[in-house]
């Protein structure tokens, strides 16, 4: 059985439109125009145990809505989701004890108390035994290196330290599934990397199934072999990150530097699409199959080549192109 199975899952939100102005507000008291947005439109996917999958998409693409349906906060408008054999929106205790949800923008820790108090509360809520609690806590605290801050009031912690504590709070009951919604949002690069390293290590050691949403490309690049790209509520790509580049960027880039007097634009145009040009450095897009041939042709031509490099297209570039469509 798959850990997570999603079939034709849709979510429609209702909202009301209000024209600007006082008169329209008064009218709105009596009659409002009801509108619908389809945040998620019949998506399908399944996730195996132990996978670390990245959900990628611009703001409002439907990533968080999907996570909320999987964790049982929202019920689907149609279609179904099955997680560990449970239907999430029934919110059975047996299911709730087996997953955790961490939202980067909402904290679950008690603001005015040291994080330790929230940990103990979660221990009671998830009915973790004393031994397991101690063992898991030591392990997590060691991995995240936060021994010193456990007894400091949460509001005095930095955002990065707080996020670490949020993760500990969420993982104390050893969930089988972890939903991470923008866990690195607002963090500086060092803190982002710390969190990322931890997630990676934790996934490898514990075999926890993890779904991660982020709009930081670095998170996805470093953590996820598999990526699901969502835009306007539909999945536009589901597969290996490496294949994504091949699919959406059927070309590589030749970066060539020239010496002597350099080259004229007309001299290199025939080799492919010019991305960047100046006299001494040119970037050319060339189809994957032809890239070797073209490189050889350039090298054996009478152009004053100093150096030539064949580069893979930058993934950020690929994603940007996908979302622009």
């Amino acid at each position: 059985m798959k850990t997570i199975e999603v079939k034709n899952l849709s979510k429609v939100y209702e909202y009301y439109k209000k024209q600007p102005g006082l008169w329209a507000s008064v009218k709105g008291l009596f009659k409002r125009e009801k509108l619908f947005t389809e945040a998620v439109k019949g998506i399908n996917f399944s996730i195996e145990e132990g996978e670390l999958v990245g959900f990628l998409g611009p703001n409002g693409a439907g990533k968080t809505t999907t996570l909320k349906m999987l964790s049982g906060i929202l019920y689907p408008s149609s279609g179904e989701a099955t997680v560990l054999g449970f239907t999430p929106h029934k919110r059975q205790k047996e299911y709730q004890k087996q997953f955790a949800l961490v939202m980067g923008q909402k904290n679950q820790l008690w603001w005015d108390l040291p994080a330790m108090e929230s940990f103990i509360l979660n221990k009671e809520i998830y009915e973790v035994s004393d031994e397991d609690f101690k063992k898991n806590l030591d392990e997590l605290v060691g991995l995240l290196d936060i021994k010193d801050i456990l007894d400091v009031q949460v509001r005095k912690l930095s955002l990065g330290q707080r996020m670490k504590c949020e993760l500990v709070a969420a993982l104390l009951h050893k969930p089988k599934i972890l939903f991470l919604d923008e866990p690195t949002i607002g963090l500086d690069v060092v803190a982002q990397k710390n969190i990322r390293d931890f997630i990676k290590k934790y996934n490898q050691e514990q075999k926890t199934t993890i779904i991660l949403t982020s709009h930081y490309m670095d998170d996805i690049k470093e953590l996820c072999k598999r990526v699901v790209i969502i835009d306007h509520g539909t999945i536009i790509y589901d597969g290996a990150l490496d294949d994504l580049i091949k699919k959406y960027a059927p070309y590589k880039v030749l970066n060539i530097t020239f010496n002597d007097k350099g080259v004229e634009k007309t001299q290199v145009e025939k080799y492919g699409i010019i991305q960047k040009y100046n006299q001494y450095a040119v970037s050319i897009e060339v189809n994957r199959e032809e890239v070797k041939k073209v490189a050889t042709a350039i090298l054996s031509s009478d152009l004053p080549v100093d150096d030539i490099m064949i580069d893979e297209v930058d993934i950020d570039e690929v994603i940007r192109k996908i979302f622009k469509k």
Partner: protein
Amino acid sequence: MKKYWKIITNEFQRHLAYRANIVSYSFGHLFEIISQIVIWTVIFQGTSMIKGYTYPEMMTYVIIGWFILFATSNYGFEERIAKDIHQGTLSNMIVKPMSYVRYIIAVSMGRVVIALITVAVIETVLIFLLRNKIIINLDPATLLLMLFMLLVAFFIKLLFSILIGLIAFWIIEISGTYFSLNIFSKFMSGAYFPMNLLPAVFVNISLFFPFIYTFFIPLQLYLKKITLIEGLRGLGVELLWLFLLYLLIKLVWHFGLKKYEAAGV
């Protein structure tokens, strides 16, 4: 049950960190009682009896009433719930194997402890200072019954607050509703003045609301204006209301959550 105990102690600790704030609150409350004492003392200079109340009875009503009011108060849980709903903090709660309503009840119990101690200290001082002006009733049966009535009163007021708070599922801004309902319930409980200063029809109407049983009735018991049996009947009505409010909360929670699940509010 252990989890709710931990919530109670967490909230207690949290409030311990803000003890200065609680003392400040009590300071404000002190002025409320002083103004009541002044008004009634001035009024009674021209007469010895108002609608069946002697001066010592009225002073007792004010002083013991002050304690009852703050001992059964839950200090603004409506807004806390509204905030949880509107800011989406509720999402964090409902994904956990825990009941949100019970969570709120536990938090309120943890919160009230320090306030209760502060109020009790001030009340003791007040009773001592005004011991010659008020009626001291030390009948154990009366005090025990009162204690039970106040305990239930605390929960009635809490459940009422929760119920108002849950309106936030449908309304974006509840502070107006909650402000008016709080003044209405305070009025109907007799906390502004004894209900029998009003025409009998008002008293009869107020018997159909839960509030009078949280304040006026226990005080009547203390002042021996009603019998123990009548007091017991009051307790019975209180328990009935408690049950009714509980059912109402379940219902409102059920439909509110449906809306929350649908829209994410």
